[in-house]
Each structure stands twice: as structure tokens, then as C-alpha cells.
């Protein structure tokens, strides 16, 4: 399959693969329903996409664990994944492409030149700036330079995964590689953060499809995440919420509460402060999601979630002990020292007051 994109429209490309217009309408309608988009968008999306020039896509992987890519390619319904790659001409992806070495570099340069200003740049993984970017380099060029280069011609940048969106685990304290999120490096391009560690496959494909078909950046929240998927917290959409409201909480991972599927708030669930679509779209084709499997949400789609204290400390615990959870001993130390200081001031104040008072001993006033 020639990787360089030709002047084919999406419709023509699909026909080449024996995917008729009606077949494509079926796919778009199914995707729209899965993404809880308005039903008429499916057909409209199909029409627009078929006329659209096949959008070019450059997929750059930097300091990442390939978890996001696995999540995308392992996505449960192969038809969606294969269609995605037929719809979009994947011009560069060092994991999938056959070429290697100089040919791969040449292919990247070629893809950027051919579709300058029109391709979608997908970044996977954080961008290390430590040691001049030496922590992540390929073909002698550091990730930072590659990113800046590729970003110049990008129509938009989609950061897949918490690493590219917020720095993820590489950025976690002590951040040895000086990892930065893409937003810290590229400022002049529209950026869409599809955070999650990894993000839900349907969220990645949904966001790409929505951008490609409409050509416009969707509504984003203050962390530049599409509101369609990151608008609500897990807590607000969680099927165990009635238990939270009724005050039924699991106290340990194997107690009666856990077995009855009660709320995992006391076991450190970060659902209340985590924005993602896990509770609605769920994982593995709608089979389940972390809370449904009995483990609290880790808050993986939130910035710095690695450093927000223990995953098993309750959401509302104070955040200043070791491992983010204070203990009675630390509270005692802090308040003890403060009381001692206060006592000194108290004695001083009383002393000052008594000095100013009459020397009239034996005063009868209480």
C-alpha cells in the first residue's frame, strides 16, 4: 500500500477496499451512537468524510510505553480500527510502518512536505528536555527537535495519553528526564489532549474522527480535553453512585461491601475529581471499567495524578504526609510544636499583663 497519500477522496479509498457508502454510513452511525453524539451526525459525518480529501496523519511516539498505541490498535472492534486507517492516510508511524532507518526518516520528511499545513500530528509520550533532549532521540535528533519540526506543518496536534497531555509518569516527582507535556513546548497550534493512561480506544478514535470529519477542534475544557468525553467526572456517571449517596462503602477490598459492589470512596477512589468517559463508554467494548472491576479509579486522566498522594488514601484526606497521607504522628508533631510556640507567646503575654498590673498583692478581685 503506497504510504504517500494520493489525491484520492475518502470515498474512493473506501471503495478500493470494498467498503460501500452504505457500509461506511453503518460504521459512522454506530460510532456516533457509541460516542453518544446526536444520531443524525452519523449520516452527515459519512457524507462529509466521503467527499473530504483523505486527511493525512503523522503519528510520533516519544518517551512513551506504547500503552496508548496498544490501546488504540487493540481496540475491541477491529472494523473500527481498520476503517480508521483506511479513512485516514497514516503517513508516518514508526511502530507500524515497514520502512526503517533512513527510509523512515525520509518518509517523515516527505509526509511533512507533501501535506504541509494539512496533516494531523498525533503525539504519544512526553517530551524529555533533560540533557538537551538526549533521553529520547531517534536518528540523531532529539524528540524536542522532531516535535518542533513536525509541529510547524501540523493543522492540529492531538496528544494521546496523559504523558503527551500532562507529562504523565516521566514527569512524576523527581522527573529525572526533565519531561514536559506537548503544551509546554508547542504554543502556536491548536492542541487537543486525549488524556488517560491509557485513554479509552473509542475516545481516541472518536476524537480523531470528529476532528477529521468536521475539521474543527471540538469543545475543550481548561485542560484542552474534549468535553464530549471529559465533561463529566467518573463520580457523577458512576453506577455505584447510589451506594455513595446511601452511605454504603466498602471498607476493604474483600469485605462484604466490596463483594456487594458498594462505593469504593473509602478505598481511595479518585472518581470525584477525575474527568473521563470510563463510567459511560467503559473499556473493552463496554464490558467494564476499573470501578466495576472492584478497584477505585486512580484519576489517570488528571494532570500529575501520580503525585496526588496514595491511590488508596481517601479522596478527602489531607495531603501533606509521606506518600501524601498524613498520619496521627505527623499531626501530633505539627500541632504539638505549634501549641508549644503558642504557649511561649501565652506566657509572655500573661507576663506582660501582670507586669503592667498593680503590685497590689492580695487584691480581692477574682
Amino acid at each position, binding site marked *: 500500500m503506497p504510504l504517500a497519500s494520493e489525491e484520492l477522496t475518502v470515498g474512493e479509498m473506501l471503495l478500493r477496499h470494498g467498503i460501500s457508502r*452504505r*457500509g461506511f*454510513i*453503518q460504521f459512522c*452511525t454506530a460510532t456516533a451512537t457509541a460516542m*453518544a453524539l446526536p444520531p443524525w451526525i*452519523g*449520516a452527515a459525518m459519512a457524507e462529509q468524510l466521503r467527499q473530504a480529501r483523505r486527511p493525512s496523519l503523522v503519528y510520533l511516539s516519544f518517551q512513551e510505553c506504547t500503552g496508548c498505541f496498544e490501546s488504540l490498535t487493540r481496540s475491541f472492534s477491529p472494523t473500527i480500527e481498520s476503517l480508521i486507517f483506511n479513512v485516514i492516510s497514516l503517513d508516518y508511524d514508526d511502530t507500524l510502518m515497514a520502512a526503517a532507518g533512513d527510509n523512515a526518516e525520509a518518509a517523515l520528511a516527505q509526509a511533512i512536505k507533501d501535506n504541509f499545513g494539512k496533516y494531523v500530528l498525533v503525539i504519544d509520550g512526553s517530551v524529555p528536555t533533560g540533557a538537551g533532549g538526549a533521553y529520547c532521540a531517534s536518528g540523531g535528533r532529539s524528540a524536542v527537535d522532531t516535535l518542533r519540526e513536525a509541529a510547524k506543518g501540523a493543522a492540529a496536534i492531538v496528544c494521546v495519553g496523559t504523558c503527551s497531555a500532562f507529562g504523565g509518569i516521566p514527569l512524576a516527582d523527581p522527573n529525572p528526564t526533565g519531561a514536559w507535556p506537548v503544551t509546554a513546548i508547542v504554543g502556536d497550534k491548536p492542541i487537543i489532549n486525549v488524556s488517560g493512561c491509557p485513554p479509552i480506544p473509542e475516545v481516541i478514535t472518536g476524537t480523531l474522527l470528529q476532528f477529521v470529519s468536521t475539521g474543527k477542534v471540538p469543545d475543550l475544557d481548561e485542560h484542552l480535553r474534549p468535553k464530549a468525553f471529559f465533561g463529566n467526572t467518573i463520580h457523577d456517571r458512576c453506577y455505584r453512585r447510589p451506594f455513595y449517596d446511601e452511605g454504603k462503602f466498602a471498607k476493604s477490598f474483600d469485605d462484604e461491601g466490596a*463483594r456487594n459492589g458498594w462505593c469504593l470512596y473509602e478505598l481511595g477512589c479518585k472518581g470525584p475529581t477525575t474527568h473521563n468517559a470510563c463510567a459511560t463508554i467503559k473499556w473493552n467494548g463496554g464490558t467494564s471499567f476499573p470501578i466495576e472491576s472492584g478497584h477505585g479509579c486512580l484519576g489517570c486522566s488528571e494532570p500529575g495524578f501520580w503525585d496526588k498522594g496514595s491511590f488508596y488514601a481517601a479522596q478527602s484526606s489531607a495531603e501533606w504526609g509521606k506518600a501524601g497521607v498524613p498520619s496521627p504522628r505527623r499531626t501530633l508533631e505539627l500541632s504539638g510544636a505549634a501549641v508549644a510556640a503558642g504557649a511561649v507567646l501565652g506566657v509572655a503575654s500573661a507576663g506582660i499583663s501582670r507586669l503592667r498590673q498593680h503590685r497590689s498583692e492580695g487584691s480581692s478581685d477574682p
Partner: protein
Amino acid sequence: MSRLSDIPIRSESRTRIEPPPADGGLGGGVVAILSELVSLLGRLVDTESPGAIDLRSLPMSAMDRAALQKVLGEGEVQATVTAQGLSRVRETGVSGVWWVEHFDQQGEMVAELIDVSRVPAILTSATDEIAASARDLRAQLIAASPREEKHAARQ
């Protein structure tokens, strides 16, 4: 040790679905859908713009669904589309209102809509497809016919 199967996995829909009233009247859900259909039909007549209602995103009990089908009734057209997956399109008794179901290759229903249009987009053929197939047909004609038909076909 409790076995994996002991862990109850229940994902009930959080909103309570009201059972339809006993006196055979229409359940609240059905009334809502029908009133939206009326407005969509109005819009179709006024602005020629089609619309649709995604049944899977609404909390519908089996009784509501049966009641809706009874109200909408059966039309004259049934069609099945086998492309990427199977789709069944049935015209309802209310002209302009079609009941469309899409299934994937494993037979799992992936979408169920009530389409409000002259004819659902999935049934019609697109102009570019018609043009392309017209070209292919002419090419076949030229290949299959003796010399004079080739001359006539060129006119």
C-alpha cells in the same frame, strides 16, 4: 476464597423506567418520542431537513417499545442492507417515519434509530456512485459488443 463468579456484575441503568400506566395509555417515554417525531416531521415538511431519534440512548422498557411500534404501525416498505454489517429498514405506518436497525458482522445490534426523512440515506444511491457505475457499465458494453455497436455506443 470467593470465586470470581461470585463478584456480582450488575450494570442496571440508573434512571428508573416507569412502567406504562395500567389503563393502556401511553407511557411517558413514548409520549415524549411521539411529540419529538411530530416536530421532526414538521421540520422535514418545512425545511426538507431530515432528523432521527437514537432509541438506544433513551431508557425504554420493552412495553414502551411495543407501545411505540403499535402506535407507529407498519408501512409498505421493508428493506435489508448487507454492507459492512446488516441493516433492516422498515417504513412505519406514519409516512416519513422509518424504523432503522444496524447490526455488526457478529449480529450484535450496534444502532437502532427512528429516521424521519423521505427515505433513509442508507437506501438511496449517491450521485458519484451512480456516475462511477455508469462508466463501468459503458465500459462493459464496449467490451461485449461487436464493432458496429462500439460505433453506436460512442454517440
